[in-house]
């Protein structure tokens, strides 16, 4: 008998008393009553608590803010679907590296890149969570992981209060990365310290009018 057949057989034996299933009580909150301004305020509060950098800006300010966040970077990777205008104020000394299908940066190249700029799919204010789902303006997972500095654009229209509100906006079968602050660990004396293997600096630009 194959392992699969045997395990499934064991499950049938184990459940010989045919336990019943019950309707899942979903009494938890699934809709928000917060205004957009309250959502912004809540998300800012959570991200600051995680030691991320946060600015709330207007759409036309994006190029300047991106440039100021990346003033110390020597090279920046960006995904193909990112609005190229957002990078237009970067100094000429900053090397721009496009990551696109058919023209992928190697892991070594990514490791030698100072920063990455991506957009994001949806953000959950209550838990301070930004979700990337691999669409063209966010790129494949490696680009937002290997460089040490991540500048992430969060359009204000994509902020929700509760996790259940975020779910319908996600395509679950794409590779998802949920980010709640820069890389951190609580492994030493259960104290949260920032900065282990993921990007050690996370700058979030929350953009009104996007």
């Amino acid at each position, binding site marked *: 008998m194959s392992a699969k057949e045997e395990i499934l057989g064991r499950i049938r034996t184990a459940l010989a008393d045919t336990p019943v299933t019950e309707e899942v009580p*979903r*009494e938890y909150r699934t809709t928000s009553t917060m205004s957009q301004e309250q959502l912004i305020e809540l998300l800012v509060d959570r991200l600051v608590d995680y030691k991320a950098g946060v600015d709330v800006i207007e759409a036309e300010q994006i190029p300047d803010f991106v440039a100021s966040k990346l003033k110390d970077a020597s090279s920046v990777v960006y995904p193909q679907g990112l609005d190229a205008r957002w990078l237009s104020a970067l100094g000429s000394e900053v090397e721009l590296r496009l990551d696109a299908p058919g023209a992928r940066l190697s892991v070594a190249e990514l490791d030698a890149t100072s920063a990455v700029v991506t957009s994001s799919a949806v953000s959950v204010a209550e838990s301070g969570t930004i979700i990337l789902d691999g669409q063209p303006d966010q790129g*494949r*997972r490696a680009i937002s992981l290997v460089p040490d500095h991540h500048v992430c654009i969060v359009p204000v229209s994509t902020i929700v209060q509760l996790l*259940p509100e975020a779910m319908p906006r996600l395509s*679950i079968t794409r590779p998802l*990365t949920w980010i*709640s602050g820069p890389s951190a660990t609580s492994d030493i004396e259960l104290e949260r310290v920032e900065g282990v*293997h993921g990007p050690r600096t996370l700058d979030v630009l929350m953009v009104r009018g996007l």
Partner: protein
Amino acid sequence: MPAGGQGNLFEQEPFPKAAHRELGNTQMRKNLRHATHSIRDKRLKVVGELPDWEALRDAGSTIKNNSMATLEERLLEFEKNFTARGGVVHWARDADEANKIVTDLVRGTGATEVVKVKSMATQEIGLNEHLESEGIDAFETDLAELIVQLGHDKPSHILVPAIHKNRTEVRDIFLKEMPVVDPNLTDEPAKLAEAARAHLRKKFLAAKVAISGANFALADTGTLGVVESEGNGRMCLTLPETLITVMGIEKVLPHWEDIEVFMQLLPRSSTGERMNPYTSLWTGVTEDDGPQNVHIVLLDNGRTRALADRFGRTALNCIRCSACMNVCPVYERTGGHAYGSTYPGPIGAILSPLLTGIEVEENGSLPYASSLCGACYEACPVKINIPEILVHLRGEDVDAKREKHKLPTQMDLLMKGGSWALGKGKNIGLLEKALPLGRLAAGKDKKIKKLPGIAAGWTQSRDIPAPPNKSFRDWWSDEKESK
């Protein structure tokens, strides 16, 4: 009765003996007390922020019960969806079989080393040791696992395996064991984290094969999820060409929306954070993004055995948050090593014997490693009634021993005595009449230092105050009469 699990699921020695030794380690007790207390406070604060916490617990517990009640269908559904998206599903009856499957998969890639994301399942089956014996080096990449691995130690907590070490001890391990390390390394946690980053960076960038566990599998989409903090998980799940996940069959959830419940319950219950820094979800293979060879090993190793126990099966609902050990007065004092098994604390005390079978002599003492105070039940995000299952398993243990010895054991007599005493008010009254006798057993310092027989365990590391002259019941009736 389905076969019991093997691997690191056993007490190494009876709990009272191990606990007695561990209690002598005062540094560890201090570290543990500090860590468990700070996390308790954090957990209470972030749980208190959610007005619907109890509703989330109710949903979480029902989802898990349903999943276990329909486990065969759920697993087949998961297999179908994971396979449809390019993943390969393997089934393993026990630890040996799982180890062999993983070894063969690694061999097939030609790699001689692998990077690992922290996983309870691979610890349970002793995968690292097995790979080593087959000439494959496995590198743990989670900071705490790294501390444990470099320190040639064993994990003592499921979430923070090095909780028994303080920062200075961690620094000393790094200085001694890392091939390249700054000799002036201080014990600041941020500096220690940086040393770990430098130590592992090259490994991540060069790794061909990664091995992970999974926090959940979603049946209706074939998706797997890993919850972590440091980014070591993302590195392992994203950069190598081959990803092998080892997961217990109980981790499957029916619907993908169910993660909205568990991702609210889990981080708050485990690290006391509103959300852990990183969560990764992947569904089979995604062209041009991440590993292109994706495998999962679905592990039984005693889970069907636990499922067969209708009073104990809810132990399989555990999401490994560790809240129960952080609030447990017994764990706080003995630490995780005393439990022997990969699963320590209150959940370990029920899960280990359920997986192996209580009649396995080695795990007979675990269900007694509790004061039944109920703190674990209250903290558990999926409402596993640990005290009730402990009592049930104690009963099973007594039955198993009776069967073996064909004689009433001391525990048996104690339990019988207990039910006689508690069965009728008159009986307990009679017993209380004997209280002054207890005073004779106590010495001048009014402490009983040694109880006879099986009860001796109770006095091994504590004294019992001598009983009062008079029982409460006697005192009460005297009071009433004198009014």
